[in-house]
């Protein structure tokens, strides 16, 4: 579905990503795990052509992002970020129906789709359809963000610390819902996080990035036993926190 082929990125102030190679298979969720500045967000933005690699290439559905029409590529790629980026001047329905509207769907089909998406993220449409983003709690905003990303039924989802700003309980609930949702809908997802616990919960594979390099690529089960120094440090920090 998505392939990074020997991708490097240099923004002028040193390399952000170095010789990064990763294949994301259809239907799996890969967590890009790492500290801030490790290059995870840059890697994510390369998938929908918001950033172009300095060298190497990113293939989406077998096609290099340089050859994709960026508008087409982005409309079939769902995108969720931490501050959600919901349009403050649009209602919930306007936000969720955005890509379908850009794609020229008829109004009644958009309306039906918006309600379907709201149901999907457990927000009663009658209550939430006409609200503005500022009339929502943080958790509700993230749900709307996810609903918006799913509205045009993209095969691929990109998520950048989507639940980072939420309290632990809401966060755990949304992580669970996310896993159920992506499995049920068969979506492929790239999930950026700096939180190992989150990566363990949501991902089928974890890619650990350190200083722009892919250090570990493993399933959650293998990751916790990884001999890699960076992975060990993360796992130990978790054990320390969980100790009584």
């Amino acid at each position, binding site marked *: 579905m998505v392939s990074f082929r020997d991708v490097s990125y240099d923004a002028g102030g040193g390399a952000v990503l170095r010789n990064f190679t990763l294949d994301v298979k259809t239907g799996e969720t890969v967590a890009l795990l790492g500290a801030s500045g490790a290059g995870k967000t840059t890697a994510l933005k390369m998938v929908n052509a918001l950033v172009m690699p300095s060298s190497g290439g990113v293939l989406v559905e077998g096609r290099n992002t340089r050859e994709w029409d960026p508008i*087409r590529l982005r409309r079939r790629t769902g995108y969720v970020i931490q501050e959600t*980026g919901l349009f403050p001047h649009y209602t919930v329905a306007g936000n969720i129906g955005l890509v379908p509207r*850009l794609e020229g769907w008829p109004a009644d089909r958009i309306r039906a789709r918006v309600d379907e998406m709201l149901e999907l993220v457990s927000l009663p449409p009658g209550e939430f359809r006409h609200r503005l983003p500022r009339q929502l709690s943080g958790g509700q905003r993230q749900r709307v963000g996810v609903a918006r990303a799913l509205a045009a039924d993209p095969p691929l989802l*990109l998520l950048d610390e989507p639940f980072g700003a939420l309290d632990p309980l809401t966060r755990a609930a949304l992580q669970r819902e996310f896993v159920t949702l992506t499995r049920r809908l068969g979506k492929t997802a790239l999930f950026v996080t700096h939180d190992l616990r989150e990566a363990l919960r949501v991902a089928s594979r974890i890619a650990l990035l350190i200083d722009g390099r892919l250090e570990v690529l493993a399933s959650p089960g293998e990751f916790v036993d990884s001999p890699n120094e960076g992975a060990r440090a993360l796992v130990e920090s978790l054990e320390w926190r969980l100790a009584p």
Partner: protein
Amino acid sequence: METRPVRPGLAAEIAALTGQHLMLVLIALAAASAIALPAGIYIARHPRYRAAALAFTNIVQTVPSLALFGFLIPLPLIGGIGQRTAIIVLVMYALLPILRNTMTGILQVDAAVRESALAMGMTGRQLLREVELPLAAPTILAGLRIAAVTTIGTATIAAAIGAGGLGVFIFRGIATVDSALLLAGAAPAALLAITADGVLEWFERKLSR
């Protein structure tokens, strides 16, 4: 000596000059918006030209308006005496607040909102029309409001170069030391300014609600 209270024809003259004044102001504001709105959008997207554009409009603002009217009189094409020159001066004055507020309004749009608009597959034009301009509208309108109020005031000076408007009363009042005439110019001008301010403020509040 002439008697004060009754001046036949004064009311009609006030109405005529107010109309003329309003015309000067509206034409100048329309022209200034036609230049400064696109220019403001442009410099919001191209930081390279920002400093130069703002410096130019800033410098214009620092030139005393009476002097600017004077400077333009001897110039060919854009200069001379009359309404055209007056409108050019008024436009130059109105540029800065509209330009600056358009730029600021667009730059104030949350980076996360802009990024997700692009990531949703909006084109540059859709981003501008559906996200940046609506979110910048209250700020842009605030700039227009400042421009309107100052233009209404500055336009009184346009009478000095024969452009008409309410300034005619004021200059006549100064020349004849007649405060009633001064008031006949100043009061309607003030009223216009207050009205314009109120109306635009109402729109501004409505947009930012």
